[in-house]
């Protein structure tokens, strides 16, 4: 099942994919274009923990030069940064380099503490697509990447679907791509992750408890390019979803003010 959370006629609904249309929890069938999409995540009682990976992809073309890190570079994000499918992300006027990052997002389904790699997939509820935008201008090397780079409001589109884990045969072999205004700029495969999903769940749960609804954004392959106001950025992962986002400038905010 591919699940979404949407606003339709001013009300919040759970919905599922009904072959190009959406079936709402009320049973009604509606067009995808007629809803506003929220992150496809059920609310949690406490703030969900959102993990994201720094460099986590081996580039096959540079394999000889690539020195795999011994420990994953993991940082945390907060819920202020999440937005849904077909929304807008702001690029500040003073930024010179803002780039997308197409990432497979793992949604935890059960409380996980000291889980082995062999058992790790039993703790996954499902998968979705995240676009973990970064604004490099604000990078400072203290607890890097710092929150000013990675935790800006609306800088992490996620969705459109939460795809049930049972419906994803091998999450470690999914095609990834990003297009900017229709041109492909990034290609990869989740199979090239350095620290794979099972490792990450085992590693994190070795020192902290993971809870249902927690997210792990598993990193992005090579192929990052800058984006500018007006660009339509589509991050897509085979079998999981096609996440559309549009870059807007500061004026989009000041008009609203």
């Amino acid at each position: 099942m591919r699940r979404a959370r949407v606003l339709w006629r001013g009300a919040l609904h759970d919905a599922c994919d009904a072959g190009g249309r959406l079936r709402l929890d009320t049973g009604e069938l509606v067009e995808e274009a007629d809803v506003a999409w929220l992150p496809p995540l059920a609310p949690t009682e406490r703030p969900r923990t959102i993990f994201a990976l720094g460099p986590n992809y081996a580039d096959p073309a540079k394999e000889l030069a690539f020195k795999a890190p011994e420990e994953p570079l993991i940082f945390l994000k907060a819920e202020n940064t999440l937005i849904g499918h077909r929304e807008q992300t702001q690029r500040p006027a003073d930024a010179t380099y803002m780039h997308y990052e197409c990432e497979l997002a793992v949604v935890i389904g059960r409380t996980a503490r000291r889980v082995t790699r062999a058992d790790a997939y039993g703790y996954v509820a499902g998968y979705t697509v995240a676009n973990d935008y970064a604004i490099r201008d604000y990078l400072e090397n203290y607890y890097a990447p710092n929150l000013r780079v990675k935790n800006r409001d609306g800088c992490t589109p996620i969705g459109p679907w939460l795809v049930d884990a049972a419906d994803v045969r091998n999450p470690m072999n999914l095609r990834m791509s990003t297009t900017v205004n229709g041109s492909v700029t990034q290609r990869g495969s989740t199979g090239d992750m350095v620290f794979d999903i099972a490792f990450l769940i085992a590693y994190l749960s070795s020192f902290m408890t993971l809870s249902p609804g927690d997210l792990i954004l598993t990193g992005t392959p090579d192929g990052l390019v800058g984006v500018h106001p007006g660009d339509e950025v589509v991050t897509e992962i085979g079998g999981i979803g096609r996440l559309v986002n549009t870059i807007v400038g500061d004026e989009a905010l000041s008009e609203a003010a």
Partner: protein
Amino acid sequence: MSHPDRIEVDATDGTVRIDGRSTRVGDVDWDVPTRGTVFGTLLNYRGALTVLGNAVDAAPYPAPPIAPVLYIKPANTWAAWGDPIVLPPAVAAVEIGAALGIVIGTTVRGVSEQEALDCVAGYTVVNDVCEPHASLHRPAIRERCRDGFCPIGPWVIARHEMRSPDALKLRVLVNGELAAENTTANLIRPVARLIADVTEFMTLSPGDVLLAGVPENSPRAHAGDRVRVEIEGVGALENALTAERSS
């Protein structure tokens, strides 16, 4: 048993009045008094930056920080007054970080320093526990985010019950002995300025807790120790460190 949302407390002597009865703080079963995301602030005490010395001018940093450096204390780290802080065998000692918790009351983005305190619901005491780590280059997830590494409480003092947050004495006691002392007067970014600079790039929401920072030279504590973080006018937060039982 009653579960009141609001109680009368004396932040100085730890007296609590619940349902008209006076009791001691240690006789109450406390919950974590906040619900939103907890953001820590790194290097916000002048002394903490001084301790780094010339290192800030060298790799990997290689310049002093410009914007506030934040980190997140996720929900698994939260603990209430009196909850044990459990140290696994791999963790010999932890640092006891005395942090003023600024509890946000209204949604705030891009606020000026002059108006910043209007968004504050109140203040609480936070013990920002971490494993010692010398390098500040990468996010210290393993060092800061173990279960129970963020006691909060016991209560939130409403902002209007407090004077300015800019010169509050902080003390850390380990087994009753004074182990560290400082004051929020030493903050590089005092509370209002910190809120203004953080909300320049992200929204704070009701219930979120922004930690003003942890002073330099946080005292270390070990399993078996009882630690107490006091903030003048806000309260005192006590927890015991215990060794994890081998399973």
